[in-house]
């Protein structure tokens, strides 16, 4: 049916790093009949190191193709399973894009199997691990986000999650803080999510332009009582420890140091 020549050794498929780009890459692999190869490498641009002896195939993100693939994937994986794929994708691990493809290929080849239950499969297992890690990071962000109340009546938080979990947080915070305007900004990745309590559609929006000063010195923008409540929280935090039971190792295990930077209770002033 297709006029493309079957290539014995498929090239390395390079995409732009976006989820849409990855979906387009899956489209390209099937379009070119590369899916039967033992190993298919799908690599994000930013992880790709060109070398002399392998050919590359650069995929350009294509909304239509991405839609067709996601439609197909939703029908075989179900909405939940499709969301699982996205979670793993957001881990941003260089190896995930190939493993994800492996899971997709497995599911398309065996539509009656619940591939997620095949814990020992070479692609399912690493993907499940990443889903778990991303899930844990999402949970940690739900816990460790600390809002500061700003003059403009917005509750503002800065985060630097290990994985790109902001897209997975919108619903949680929207349900929780329906009656206040809030923003969470990923300082590492340079974007954030914003909810405006007066927006009639109550949609969470993406934001990329935030006042640099607010990121570096948020306390310059605090509303009148913000510092009082931060102090009260710090006071509370120091008084709930039972000093006869102090256990610094356990403390750090549960509250890893890399998160302290934005935790109000860990930044006594």
């Amino acid at each position, binding site marked *: 049916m297709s006029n493309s020549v079957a290539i014995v050794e498929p090239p390395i498929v390079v995409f732009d790093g976006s989820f849409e780009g990855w979906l387009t890459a899956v489209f390209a692999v099937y379009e070119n009949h590369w899916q039967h190869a033992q190993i298919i490498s799908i690599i994000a641009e930013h992880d790709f190191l060109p070398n002399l002896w392998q050919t590359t195939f650069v995929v350009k993100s294509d909304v239509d193709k991405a839609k067709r693939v996601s439609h197909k994937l939703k029908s075989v994986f179900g909405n939940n399973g499709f969301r699982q794929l996205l979670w793993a994708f957001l881990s941003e691990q260089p190896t995930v894009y190939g493993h994800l493809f492996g899971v997709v290929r497995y599911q398309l080849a065996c539509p009656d199997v619940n591939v997620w*239950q095949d814990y020992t499969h070479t692609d399912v297992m690493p993907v499940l691990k990443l889903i778990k890690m991303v899930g844990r990071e999402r949970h940690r962000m*739900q816990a460790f986000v600390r809002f500061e109340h700003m003059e403009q009546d917005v*509750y503002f938080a800065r985060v630097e999650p290990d994985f790109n979990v902001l897209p997975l947080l919108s619903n949680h915070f929207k349900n929780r803080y329906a*009656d206040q305007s809030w923003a969470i900004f990923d300082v590492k990745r340079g974007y954030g999510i914003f909810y405006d309590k007066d927006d009639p559609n109550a949609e969470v929006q993406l934001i990329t332009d935030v006042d640099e000063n607010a990121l570096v010195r948020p306390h310059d923008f605090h509303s009148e009582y913000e510092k009082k409540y931060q102090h*009260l929280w710090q*006071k509370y935090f120091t*008084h709930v*420890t039972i000093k006869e039971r*102090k256990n*610094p190792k356990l403390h750090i295990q549960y509250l890893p140091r890399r998160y302290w930077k934005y935790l109000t209770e860990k930044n006594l002033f």
Partner: protein
Amino acid sequence: MNYDRLKDKLAILADAAKYDVSCSSSGGNRKNHNKGLGDSSVSGICHSYTEDGRCVSLLKILFTNHCIYDCAYCTSRRSHDTPRAAFTVEEVVDLTMQFYRRNYIEGLFLSSGIFKSPDYTMERLVRVAKELRTIHKFNGYIHLKTIPGASDELMQEAGLYADRLSVNMEIPTKSGLALLAPEKNHDDMKAPMKTVQEQIVVFKESRKQHKHAPKYTPAGQSTQFIVGATKETDLQIIRLSSHFYKQYDLKRVYYSGYVPMLTDSRLPAIGTPVPMVRENRLYQADWLMRFYGFEAEEILPSDSPFLDLDCDPKLAWAIRHRQHFPVNIQTAPYKMIVRIPGIGTRTAKKIVTARKFTTLTLDHLKQMGAAVNRAKYFIALRGRNEHLVHLTQDNFRQYILAQTQTKFKDERHGQLTLF
């Protein structure tokens, strides 16, 4: 609001509340239905951890630490020379709202010393909950400690606004309670549990008829035992917990290793170490009853009523019942798989599913999260398992403990999975 005074009160009343170990915000499922503030997730969230490694999920405070009683084990007892304070209803409401808005907490855990009378005190606790729910549209988690001796009417009202109610038994034996808190007795303390349990049933019934009938303490009730303040045995504690789970449908029993902070000839001297390992073992025993299908009597034989401090109760059971092992992971029923040391409920479920696809190896078990260094002595595989030779040897117990020692050295507490 006078913030400096508020800060002092908070210090005193958080200090006095911290020995209550219940911090859980789980089991709540209040949705944000009124575009108000908050929504509690079923699994609960720990927003921070104290320096002793305990979860901070709720703003846990006493309304006041004034008390007309004199329970020996309590820092708020009337004969203790300590700074006293009391919040106002508005202050507690404001702190809860403001902390919640900043994502510091999942909600409020409010307890209190008894000032004036049980009803006078309980009324205030109920008012806090009521104002949060009705005036401030707060949908976060609320846990109220019920005050022993408060009227049934107040208890009933409390359950309409709170997600969880608790009555702390504190001292597991009647004789211990008589010694340390002569003004109290077990039966009086159990009475409110019965009331709450009955209310839960009544409200469940009415919800069957009208879907919109209110819920009553949707996250159920819990209690706490202080461990090591009196001479109770672990078997007594476990039996009592089992009794509460079965008779009163309790959601959780908490165990709090006694921290000596008061000089009293009836109590362990100041400086006596907190029985942390024992407390941890009790939590493990509790898990065995709630999630692993163990009966209290299986966990401890009546001729040795204390839990083994060197080894967790599941491993101890397996060592005592070697005749049930090895368990074949390819074919054994789930209820035996979870009894294998080193395999928790999650891994057990995975095993039962994955074995339909593959013949499982030790490596697979490791990938699925089993502690293979323990499990390998107790399981039969399709292939040969050379670790099984130890199972029938006389020194099995010493051998296993020596092999897995480091695993048991950690003195963790509370919300852990150790199996």
